[in-house]
Structure formats: C-alpha cells, structure tokens
C-alpha cells in the first residue's frame, strides 16, 4: 500500500467514526437507548407490557401499622428466599414519631429499626419501601448488559438471564431498592407462611433467581399484566395502606387519590420521578395507640 493510500484510508476511517458517533448521539438520548435489547430478550420471562399504562403505587404512611404482612406475602408470592440469607423486596422501618422520612432514606445515618418485634408501638410510625419504579430510572442507564430495563408500562424490571452481577444498578439506586443474591438461594417446594401458618407452594409464575444476580420488586408484574389488578402487598394489607393502579386511567384508584390527597415522593431532587407516592390523611399513631 502506498503512503497516500494509507493516509486516505485513515482519514476515511476517522470520518466514518465521527459520523457514526454523531448519528448515535444526536438520534437518541441516553435514556432511549437503554431498553431495546432487554425488552426483546426478556420476552417469556414476564407477560407483555400493558400498552398505554403507567403503573404507580401510593402508600398511606399514616395508616400503616407496621405489621409486615405485605413483606411476608411479597416473599411468598415472588419466591424471595429466606435461606441462606434473608432477602426482602419490601423494607419496613419503625420510626419515632418525632422523626421525619428523610431519616430513613438519606442523611444523617439513622438507627431507624427494621428489626422491631411488636407493632404498632406507642409513639412510632411505619414507613415501607419497595422499588420505586422510577419514570427516570438511574439504575437502568448504568447497566452494562441491558439486564435491567424500563418497560413501556413504566415497570423497571430485571432480566435475570442477562445480569452479570456487577451491582452497578445497586450503586445507582438512591433508595437501596435492590437486593443481591450473595449465595445460592434456597427455594423449598413450599414454605409456611408467617402470617397465617399455612403451607404456601413456590409460585410457578415467578422465575427463580440464581446466585450472583440482582433482584427487586416487580410490582408483581406476573399479576398486574395478567388480569389481576393488584400486587400481592396491596391485596393483603389489613389497613388498606397500599394503593395501586394505572395513572393513565383517570378512573383508577391512584388517579383519584392523587387528585384528593397531598402526596410526596422521596428524594425528588434527584429527578428520578419515582412512581411510589406517599401520603397521609393526617393520621399518626398517638402515644395511647389511638389514631389522632
């Protein structure tokens, strides 16, 4: 190859590179390119996305009595293992009445208890968290394989077959919503429910996870996209503190609640647009255990 030819070749190569890069960057925003592969490859793992829906959950933190029914029901519904390490998709915090929300998810470091044994307790209130299914999720952006992605109905899901276990999504999540399979999860064919003592078999609709992958709340994707309108935690709540629905449907429970109650979302300054709204109808547990 003569000298001139080589130079032309390099120039051409550079030109192609520049054009390709500009095309990629200008055509799509960083948010757009995140989901496409993952949606395709996750087919079969979850039912098809509900077209036109935007799912959201609302939690009445004033009503919550901290009974953990949602937490245990969630674990049984979604085959979340107890052994060898206890994994949870819902976190429940017992807060002193004088303490604000920011003490759980934020600074300063908190000693808010997750290990309480009795509830509701005098002078305390309860705050529960699961995945916020953010509209602008920071976790899906950083994933190097597209294992975690946002679907058309807003659900942020994990394709367990693509996850390489780098835990970058956990680093990016402001809410510690994700949990990692540090060991081989043990999935017995059935477990005794701590709520009512009944034997509950493994749920065949929810894929089992392996060691080394990240998992989290799915808003019970296998139910809500398959005819059942509510996630398990919403269904079982004895005080009706959890509400769920489609924000795009003006008749849904969340749409109506959003119009009538005052809500807040956690760490809104990060622009994650969480789909988990908190509200309270002005009720806190008083010292005598009565609602004010």
């Amino acid at each position, binding site marked *: 190859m003569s000298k001139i030819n080589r130079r032309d070749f390099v120039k051409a190569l550079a030109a192609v590179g520049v054009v390709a890069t500009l095309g990629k960057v200008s055509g799509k925003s960083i948010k757009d390119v995140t989901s496409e592969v993952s949606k395709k490859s996750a087919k079969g793992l979850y039912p098809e996305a509900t077209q036109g829906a935007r799912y959201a959950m609302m939690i009445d933190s004033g009503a919550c009595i901290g009974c953990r029914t949602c937490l245990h029901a969630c674990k049984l519904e979604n085959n979340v293992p107890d052994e060898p390490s206890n994994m949870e998709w819902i976190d429940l*915090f017992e807060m002193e009445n004088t303490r604000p929300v920011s003490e759980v998810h934020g600074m300063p470091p908190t*000693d808010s208890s997750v290990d309480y044994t009795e509830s509701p307790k005098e002078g305390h209130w309860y705050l529960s968290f699961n995945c916020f299914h953010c509209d602008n999720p920071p976790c899906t952006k950083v*994933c190097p*394989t597209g294992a975690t992605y946002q679907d058309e109905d807003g659900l942020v899901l994990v394709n367990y077959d693509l996850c390489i276990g780098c835990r970058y999504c956990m680093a990016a999540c402001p809410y510690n919503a994700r949990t990692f399979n540090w060991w081989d999860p043990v999935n017995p064919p059935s477990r005794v429910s701590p709520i009512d003592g009944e034997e509950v078999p493994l749920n065949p609709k929810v894929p089992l996870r392996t060691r080394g992958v990240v998992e989290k709340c799915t808003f019970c994707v296998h139910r809500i996209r398959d005819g059942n309108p509510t996630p398990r935690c919403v269904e079982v709540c004895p005080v009706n503190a959890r509400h769920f629905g489609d924000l795009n449907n003006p008749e849904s429970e969340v749409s109506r609640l959003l119009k009538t109650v005052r809500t807040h979302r956690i760490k809104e300054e990060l622009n994650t647009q969480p789909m988990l709204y908190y509200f309270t109808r002005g009720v806190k547990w008083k010292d005598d255990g009565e609602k004010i």
Partner: protein
Amino acid sequence: MTERQEKIMRPLRTTSREFWPFVLALALITVAFIYAYTIQLSQGLGVTGLNDITIWGVYIVNFIFFIGLSHAGIAISAAVRIMSLHRYAPIARMAEILTLASLMMAGLSIVIDLGRPDRAYLMVVNYAARIGASPLLWDITAVGTYLILSTTYLYLPMREDLAVCRDSFTGWRRRMYEITLPGYEKGEEKVIKRLAWWMAVTILPVMVMVHTTVSWIFSLLSNRPLWFGAAAGPYFIAAAVASGIASVVVIAAIVRKLFNWEDLLPPEIFRGLGNFLAVITLIYLYLMLVEQFTARYAGPAGEFFVSEAWLFGSYATVFWTLTTIGLILPCVYLLVQAFRPGKINITWTSVFSTVIVIAMWFKRYIIIVPTLTVGGSPLQTYTPSWIELTIIGGSLAALALIYTILLKLIPIIEMEEPHHG
C-alpha cells in the same frame, strides 16, 4: 556487543540464588489467591464482607488502584518521546511493563467482583446497545484501547532489542525470541521510531480518558455523596499520576540496586521523578482540601456526613494516617529535596514513594466504602473477609510475579544509548 548491551543483558543471562525463593514465595501467594477465588466462585460473593448496602469493597478499590499504577508507564515514556526528555529514556520501558501488568490485574479485579463472571461476555454481545449509556462499558472500552495501544507501544520499539537477545542466545531461548520477531528486518528502527512518536501522541489523550472514565463510573451517580461531582476526573488523574510515578521510582531503585546499574540509572533521573512526584502529591492534597471544604462549609447532608465519617468517624484513623504519614510527610520530604541543590538520597526517595503508593490504596478505600456505608438504611458495616484479603494480597503478588518474570525475559532498559540533551 557493546558494554552497555552486555550490562543490560546480564539479568537475562545470570540468575542469583535469591531469585528462586523470591519467585517461589510470590507464586505461593498467587496460588493462595487462586484458592480463595475458587472458594468464591463455588459459593458466591457471600464469602466476602459485602452486603446490600456496601455493595462494592476492596475489589473495586484494587481495580482503581491498578488502573492508577498503569498510568505511570505511558505517561513517562510518551512524555519522553514527545518532549525529547532523553534523560528519562532508561526508565521508559520498566514503566511501560508496569502499565501492561497492572492493566491486566485491573481487568482481573473487575471480573473477580462480578457475581456471574461466566456471563462477562454479555458485555461484548450487548455492547452496541449499551455503549451509549453505561459508564462501565465506557471504561472497559477505554481500558481495552489503552491496553492494546500500550502493548503495541511497548512491543514495537522493543523489537530491536529482542533481535539483540535472539542473536546472543542459542537453543530454545533463541527460538523463543525468534517467535516474538515476525518479519523483523534490520534497519526497521527508523520507521518504528516515527510510528512510536505518533503512537505517543495518540496514547496521551487516551490515558487521560482512561482515568476520567474510571472516575465517571462513580462520579456520574447523583445519589452518592463525594462520588458525584465534576472534579472527579482531575482528582482521579492526580491520584493515578502520583501512585504511578511513585511505583516507577520504587522499581527503578530496586533494579538499580539489584543489578548494580548505578551508571545506567543516574541520580538525576530520581531527582526529576522525585520533584515531579512532590508537585503532583501537593496538587492532590490541594484537591482533597478543596473537596473537604466544599463538603463542609454549607454542609449538605450527604456530603457532610460522609466527610464526618472520613475526618472524625469510623474511618478517621485510616484517613488521617494516610493523609499525614502517607501524603503530607513524603510530599514535604520530596519538596525539601527538590529545593536543596546537591545529591539526592535515592533510598529515602524510594521509601517515601512506597509510602505514597500504599497511601493511595487506602485513599481509594476511603473514597469507595464510606459513601456506601454512611447513610445506608438499614445501617450495615463492612469488614473485608479473609477471602477478600487473600485475593487482594494475591493479586499484588501476581503483579510482582508477572513483573519479575518479564524482568528475566525482556531487556528492561532500552539498549540504545540515550542522547544527552
């Protein structure tokens, strides 16, 4: 063969009695590392001290540390070539080999940290779809480019010297060098020199981007106080330059002593490197000050409480030890030495360089861990398990082992007489 060539070839020809026990010791630690990793592979990352709050630990610390070390080679040798700093030519190759070895260990550190290393190939399969979004992929791209460029950059100018090796050995060693020299022609050095100059020009910006993308893995996460910020790139580059240059000082001092290369590696080299190290450490200390001041003046919750943990909390002992003994003391020594005319003390320069390298490992620990643990809910602490510690120690030993073996195979100093100018 000239007297200079003879001298440089000596470590390749003769091996002292102490060499084998040393290599054996390194190999044993490396075997322990493989053993520990086997346990982790068969049982899962649960064998580490990590948890759902402290999701990253010493493996990621090691990754940043090795990327930092890798800085040295190319920075020095590209600068030597572009700016014609011929005085430093004798350390160029030993620095380049450090780059190569530590880049490999950095890649390994990332794989060790994966929950499913068997699926690492998925990053390649889904590369086109994810490269637009994931900083981890940007970093793998940058490191990969850097690895390929620096291997080529090390190899091309070395062919001349490998040819000398080939001609001076017989038997299997001759054949070994033969394999490394496909298409070698006498007199190709002229073309290669020109090529290497252009490669040096290319590599320098790539080097800057490698350290910047490493910082981006962390600094683009808006939810992580003291990771998030625009200055992370320069901050990481300063740390990389400091630890990289410091480790080259140590290596140069060791081979100088070991192979009696007092004339090949004159004290002026150490003076120059020491001065540079003093300045870069000073810049790093300045960046630390700026960072802490910003975190503490108004004291927004995230930054303030992580800073509290660094300065007065459970990480204070590590933080203040590494800052005072690890950075300020060496910096003061090197600065005093820089301003005093006359001889320099190579022993102390290399001792303080070692201290800086160690301090930089712990500084990376302070960067990674407190941001994750402080403010996590529920609160969880992190103590590295013995598996993690064995893997960390073992990966350092593996680096030393790779380096020692290359020392016996490659002329570690360029045989060409440096031009004095």
